[in-house]
């Protein structure tokens, strides 16, 4: 499977949501094998399908005063918060090329984050039933996805900057009383978010035994062509999808 990367920079959540749908439609039509959107969001609280509004701990007026918007989306999970201190990634992956297994896909998203943390000498953990990635008892990455026609959308957020954690106190993340942490908090050093992007993209390539397809657009309004130069990255062995990836999905599998 090949995926094209769309680096949107700092962007509005709703605009990115529309962009996800646009990429989704192109993947569904077969115009693009898969896409990976990477971005940062202006402050926003999002509610997944299992969300309880009681998990937002302050009123909407106060949120507005703080410049935080609210958005209900079709992903799984409860409430979460995004801001520019995180990197958010939306894999619009056609699982017909991979394995049609929701839990495996979730575990692979966790693996992407665990691999990134390993590069910093940090042990990322999974806890059964608590999808996401944890460092000790604190959560560093949140995951919530939707799948239609075995094509994924929505995705994961990784807390990078330490100054982004304060606003998590405005919600009960994932409907739980948990503490969030960030990469900067753990390593006690400044991290430039842009530096992490390439590493994360390569982790996706490796975990999903995929190839990266360039032709990157920084502006969602330009509706990037699916044509572009293919970088000569090869899939590494030993990935979760190793040996099972398909070059072409079976026709009857594409809904």
């Amino acid at each position, binding site marked *: 499977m090949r995926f094209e990367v769309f680096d949107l920079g700092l962007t509005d959540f709703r605009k990115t949501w529309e962009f996800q749908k646009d990429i989704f439609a192109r993947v569904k039509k077969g115009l693009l094998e898969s896409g990976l959107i990477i971005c940062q969001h202006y402050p926003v609280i999002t509610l997944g399908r299992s969300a309880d509004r009681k998990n937002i701990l302050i009123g909407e007026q106060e949120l507005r005063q703080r410049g935080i918007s609210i958005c209900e989306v079709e992903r799984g999970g409860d409430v979460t918060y995004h801001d520019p201190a995180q990197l958010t990634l939306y894999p619009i992956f056609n699982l017909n090329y991979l394995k049609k297994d*929701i839990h*495996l896909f979730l575990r692979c998203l966790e693996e992407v984050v665990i691999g990134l943390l390993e590069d910093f000498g940090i042990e990322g953990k999974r806890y059964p039933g608590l999808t996401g990635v944890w460092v000790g008892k604190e959560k560093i990455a949140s995951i919530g996805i939707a799948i239609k026609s075995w094509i994924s959308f929505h995705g994961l957020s990784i807390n990078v900057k330490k100054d982004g954690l304060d606003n998590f106190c405005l919600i009960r993340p994932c409907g739980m009383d948990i503490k969030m942490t960030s990469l900067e908090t753990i390593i006690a050093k400044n991290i430039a978010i842009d530096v992490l992007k390439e590493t994360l993209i390569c982790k996706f390539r490796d975990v999903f035994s995929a190839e990266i397809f360039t032709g990157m657009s920084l502006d969602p309004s330009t509706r990037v062509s699916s044509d572009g130069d293919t970088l000569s990255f090869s899939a590494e062995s030993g990935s979760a999808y190793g040996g099972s990836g398909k070059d072409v999905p079976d026709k009857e599998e594409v809904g």
Partner: protein
Amino acid sequence: MTKVVLPELGEGIEKATVSYWYFKTGDRVKEKDDLVEFTTDKATFNLPSPCAGIISELMFQEGDTVNVGEILAVIEEG
């Protein structure tokens, strides 16, 4: 008459929760229309209609848990 069942969603996934029906009994659906949305873990999953026709029966309500392989709905084709 077509019986719609909850398909395999992955290894170790034995059930899922109905989170949204896109149609009600008596509605006409087209093939590949989104029929029902499930949630499992931190994912939602949309099951499309396998055929065109009229929905004669929905076996579960939103919030119900369904086992893989169980019949979800019956569609009278045509």
